[in-house]
């Protein structure tokens, strides 16, 4: 099967949502697919650990802070929701409204980081570390990797807010906004997969 990727720039906004369009640039999709592959490898490691060390992976989630995991899931989903609202506002040429939605998304990115740092501190006080057992080694590797993604994703959102305030985007041209939007949703997707695997399923 031969598939041709045809990039439609965001400034052709009336046509960019026609069947077959690509939201954002091809470059960001190359990055997203690479990142999703990276997370897929981590999830394969999790599944292999679970079948080879069932006891450790069954007991592991019981000692984690489920409340912190749940709060961060709600935070990520809500920030992702703010992001799509920012995109919709920009399509309606409401730059100020778009910037406000993005500010909400960035603030929630910050909340996620604070909650995760609290969770790591809570783990330490309860004697959980990368050396406790294989489950916690996987937990720290996966969640810290995700933590870094949220960090630089939040910084990228702040940059796009700055660009909006500079008047760089409007309803015709907002590819930078679409790029961070799909990237941020990818970070959200990774977290909604991590949450059941590490915190819920025993």
């Amino acid at each position: 099967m031969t598939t041709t990727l045809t990039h439609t720039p965001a400034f052709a906004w009336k046509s960019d949502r026609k069947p077959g369009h690509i939201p954002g640039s091809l470059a960001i999709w190359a990055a997203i697919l690479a990142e999703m592959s990276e997370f897929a490898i981590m999830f394969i490691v999790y599944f292999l650990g679970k079948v080879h060390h069932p006891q450790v992976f069954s007991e592991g989630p019981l000692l984690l802070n489920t409340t912190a995991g749940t709060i961060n899931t709600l935070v990520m989903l809500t920030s992702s929701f703010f992001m799509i609202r920012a995109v919709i506002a920009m399509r309606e040429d409401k730059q100020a409204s778009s910037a406000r939605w993005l500010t909400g998304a960035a603030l929630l990115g910050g909340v996620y980081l604070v909650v995760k740092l609290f969770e790591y501190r809570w783990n330490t006080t309860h004697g959980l570390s990368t050396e406790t057992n294989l489950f916690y080694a996987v937990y720290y590797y996966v969640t810290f990797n995700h933590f870094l993604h949220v960090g630089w994703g939040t910084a990228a959102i702040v940059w796009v807010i700055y660009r909006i305030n500079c008047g760089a985007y409007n309803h015709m041209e907002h590819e930078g906004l679409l790029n961070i939007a799909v990237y941020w949703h990818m970070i959200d997707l990774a977290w909604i997969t991590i949450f059941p695997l590490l915190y819920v399923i025993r």
Partner: protein
Amino acid sequence: MMNQTQLVDRLWLLLISLTLFSAYMAERDTQGFNSILIMALVLAIKGRIIVDHFMELKSAHRLIRTLMRVYYYVIPLMIIAVYLFPEQIAQWTRL
């Protein structure tokens, strides 16, 4: 007919509800096959909503849409497979 804003507002509420339901499942003492099946289904639904409506891939390029959608078929199926056949998978993957 709902506009896009109304649709994403409702989908966000659905995602929040599904997450709270998952948290409730995490606190249950026992997790049998039905619980695993429900949790896998919840993940598949949440993934599909974000891919189709937040990333707006529902009508986007077929290759990108398919790759992203397949992710949220494969991971839930792996959750079920690991629950049902742990020893067999361990045997296949032993070095």
